């Protein structure tokens, strides 16, 4: 479990995060939802230690991360896997080497054969068993995301952070990436935090959702509760999606929306 307590972050005189307090639960897909410029990515960077909060604390399973000794922070970081918005694959390494890299660096006791087996397992898990020798420049956006996920889970991470995993992907690939993250989270009991502004992700995989607006946490709850939330900013955000509007209409008036992926949206 990750606990964020009263986190403030300013860039110069501009407040970005204004006292965020929330909890990300173990074994669940925790979504941080909000429009552009609401501080989602800044919050994520504060949690993983790329930015230091001005005020507040972040705790990983009871161990304080912010302002703790560098050795303890390093130990926590070794349990973190992260999927970046642009995948952040190392250009000079092929897919296999990218996935192997954290194992080489973080688990020096692992033999070469064990590493190879683990990499092959992770690549197979994300459906890229035949792409090991490809360079990142030869991959599509969706494949890069998959490699990013494989690299993140390779060292058996406890916490998985995904910064807008659907950005730049077509809707079908987005759903597949969402499903992959969801499956991995529940399969390995990982605490997953996903930054998104995609309502499809909320409907598909949002076990627990935190809504940010202008640096404030305005709401948190489950995907079943979100459609009936009584927060105007959240309502505006949700119902800007025509798909969600249609789903809500179906829910109220009856009928079914069928898709080739995911569960059909069934009305009363």
């Amino acid at each position, binding site marked *: 479990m990750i606990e964020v307590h009263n986190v403030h972050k300013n860039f110069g005189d501009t407040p970005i995060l204004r006292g965020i307090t929330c909890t990300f639960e173990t074994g669940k897909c925790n979504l941080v939802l909000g429009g552009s410029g609401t501080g989602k990515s800044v919050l994520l960077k504060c949690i*993983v*230690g*790329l930015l230091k909060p001005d005020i507040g604390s972040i705790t990983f399973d009871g161990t304080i991360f912010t302002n703790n000794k*560098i050795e303890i922070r*390093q*130990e926590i*970081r*070794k349990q*973190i896997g*992260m999927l*970046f*918005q*642009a995948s*952040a*694959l*190392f*250009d000079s390494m092929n897919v296999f080497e990218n996935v192997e890299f*954290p194992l*080489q*660096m*973080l688990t*020096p006791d692992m033999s070469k054969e064990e590493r190879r087996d683990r990499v092959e397992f992770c690549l197979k898990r994300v459906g890229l068993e035949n792409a090991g020798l490809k360079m990142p420049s030869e991959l599509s956006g969706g494949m890069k995301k998959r490699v990013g996920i494989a690299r993140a889970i390779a060292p058996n991470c406890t916490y998985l*952070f995904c910064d807008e995993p659907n950005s730049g992907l077509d809707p079908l690939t987005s759903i597949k990436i969402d499903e992959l993250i969801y499956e991995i989270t529940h399969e390995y009991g990982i605490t997953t935090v996903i930054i998104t502004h995609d309502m499809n992700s909320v409907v598909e995989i949002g076990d627990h959702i935190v809504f940010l607006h202008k640096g404030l946490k305005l709401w948190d709850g489950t995907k079943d509760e979100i459609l009936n939330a009584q927060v105007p900013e959240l309502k505006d955000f949700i119902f800007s999606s025509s798909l969600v509007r249609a789903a809500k209409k179906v829910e109220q008036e009856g009928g079914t929306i069928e898709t080739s992926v995911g569960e059909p949206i069934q009305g009363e």
Partner: protein
Amino acid sequence: MVKVFGQYLLFLQSMLVRKERVRVLWNRTLDEAVSIGIDSVFIVSIVAAFIGAVTCVQIAYNLTNPLIPKATIGFMVREMTILELAPTITSIVLAGKVGSSIAGGLGTMRITEQIDALEVMGINSTSYLVFPRILGAIITFPLLVILAMVLSILGGYLAGTLSGALSAQEYIEGIRDAFIPYNITFALIKSVVFAFLVSSISAYRGFFTEGGALEVGASSTTAVTHSIIAILVGDFVLAYTLL
């Protein structure tokens, strides 16, 4: 200015704390040394040979006094090459080639979040990315300077003898005259200092790139400019203190 210098010193300090495993750093250093060294041999060779040739021809052009022996041309080519041209011009050429490569590479890694990815994994990115580059430069710059010395003197020999400015015998006599071994040591000290300045300044500029592709280009340009200025200032300080 003071703030930037302070940030530069902290940046250098950060690669010495929480160092990665020796084996990892050694392998990375060898990779960087090969990349910096092998890739620069061609340009260094061309520049050094022609500078030696031009130096020889121009000294011959100016030495018209019949009382001055022609062997002096060889002597002057050697002294200029060892003391100044080989270490300084080679380092300036490398500032352009290696410096821009280091700044551009790290700048691209920064804006594509590859450096963030290393940090999130708990890897000290300065130790992993910057330390091997600086060490690789410190290993290869002196070797390239030695190569430049040899080729520059050889270039002078070919230009002098083929143009008829002096005979091979006179050139070799001048090359061997009043040789001071310390000058070689001085040149190698300069090359090590310049290697450190070029690689660390370029790495610093690249590492703290913010923005996009345009800023990566700007970082590379700044890295080269600042490296060349640092080389020239360092050249004066070293000459003043060590000679």
